[in-house]
């Protein structure tokens, strides 16, 4: 494994790009699934719980979910290896440094943004994934585990909603740099293709970020304020 990861700077970046893009595709699916929370309450409850059951019992989805967990781990471990090597390669730094002017802050701080996302993931997995798998959930009218009510009650706490928004803003900036950077790592070189991929990457980032931020706010306002 060590020689595999030490293969070359470019190869390590390709692995970062592959795992990152796979995780981005997962985000599209995850957001699409979550949009069911926006349905009218009765329908949302039944449909979301059915969907949760399907997502945790289907064999194919189970296999994909293991690839997903592996991707998260590989992406995080690689980022650590890459960051440590880069620190060494940077060579000391400058007494007077104005380099921040020539690049975007989020492209320089992918590690910090990624750490925020990782911390969020731990809380998120504990509160929903772990609860669904190992907690004692109430049943809905159809006899499915009632994840919907757990989700709705979780977002009744304003601080919890704010925490989610912060995590999604971090995710948004991470994707804003990450998705396009991944395409560049694959070698998106003719400028026409590069421009098209930049358009797609940025569009997808905006869609995902706005979508993920909207849902907790919507639940808070609809189920806890009105």
């Amino acid at each position, binding site marked *: 494994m060590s020689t595999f990861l030490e293969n*070359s*700077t*470019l*190869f*390590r*970046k*390709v692995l970062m790009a592959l795992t990152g893009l796979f995780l981005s595709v997962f985000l599209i699916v995850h957001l699409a699934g979550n949009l069911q929370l926006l349905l009218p309450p009765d329908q949302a409850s039944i449909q979301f719980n059915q969907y949760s059951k399907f997502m945790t019992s289907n064999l194919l989805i189970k296999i994909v979910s293991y690839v997903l967990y592996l991707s998260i781990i590989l992406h995080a471990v690689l980022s650590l290896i*890459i960051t440590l*090597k*880069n620190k*060494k*390669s*940077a*060579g*000391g*730094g*400058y*007494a*007077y*440094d*104005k*380099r921040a*002017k*020539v*690049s*975007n802050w989020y*492209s*320089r701080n*992918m590690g910090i943004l990624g750490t925020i996302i990782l911390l969020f993931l731990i809380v998120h997995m504990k509160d929903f994934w772990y609860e669904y798998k190992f907690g004692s959930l109430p049943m809905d009218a159809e006899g499915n585990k009632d994840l919907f009510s757990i989700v709705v009650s979780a977002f009744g706490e304003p601080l919890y909603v704010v925490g989610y928004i912060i995590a999604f803003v971090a995710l948004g900036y991470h994707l804003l*740099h990450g998705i*396009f*950077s991944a395409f*560049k*790592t*694959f*070698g*998106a*070189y003719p*400028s026409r293709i*590069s421009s098209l991929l930049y358009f797609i990457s940025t569009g997808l980032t905006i869609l995902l970020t706005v979508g993920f931020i909207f849902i907790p706010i919507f639940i808070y306002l609809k189920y806890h304020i009105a």
Partner: protein
Amino acid sequence: MKIKLKIWRQINAESKGKLVDYSLDNVEEDMSFLEMLDLLNEELILKGERPVEFDHDCREGICGTCGLFINGRAHGPLAGTSTCQLHMRSFKDGETIYIEPFRGGAFNVIRDLKIDRSSFDRIMSKGGYISTPVGDAPEANAVPITHDQAESAFDSAACIGCGACVATCKNGSAALFTSAKITHLAKLPQGKVESRARVLKMVEQMDEEGFGHCTNTLACQVECPQEISVSNIDRMNWEYNKAKILGKGD
């Protein structure tokens, strides 16, 4: 104009360096930045002090020898300009100017502002050329190349190897330099033939020298005095991935 200087002084690679304060009173705004340093050195020599050592050669912006980190930026405040093409009119009267050597894990300070960039030469020696001896210059029209192709290859070939890309990269990556060489040759029919073997060997040497990963912050293209585009890095990545999948094609 009067200026204050804070210049990095260091005896050799092993010793620890530090910023030393100087001031100059008779600076003219039409002086180049290097002429200002010449003026300082004349004063230091008259005082019996060791002059500040810095790299320079053509002073026309085409050789890539000069390279200083000025006020926190590679080659100073102007875009698309090497240190020798920077003039004192870009600074204010009474301003304090910080001058440091280009830094990178693969660049060692030799003395003061002079750095060892032989790592670039070793990358070049791994494939920054066409290995077939062609004898005399062949007939120019024997190999048809479009005007756009030639221009595009020249945009990459314009790299002067100054090292500003490495100096400004937070990762100390030499991706812009290495990719400009790879792309320049990959864009022309004469260079295309060996492009897969070339990219593998040059990237291997780049890694061996200890340069970091490119994380696409795009800072390098902003500071490049020749305005080499990061699209060269995209092309290098493409050539590298192709070579990794298809083999070096011999």
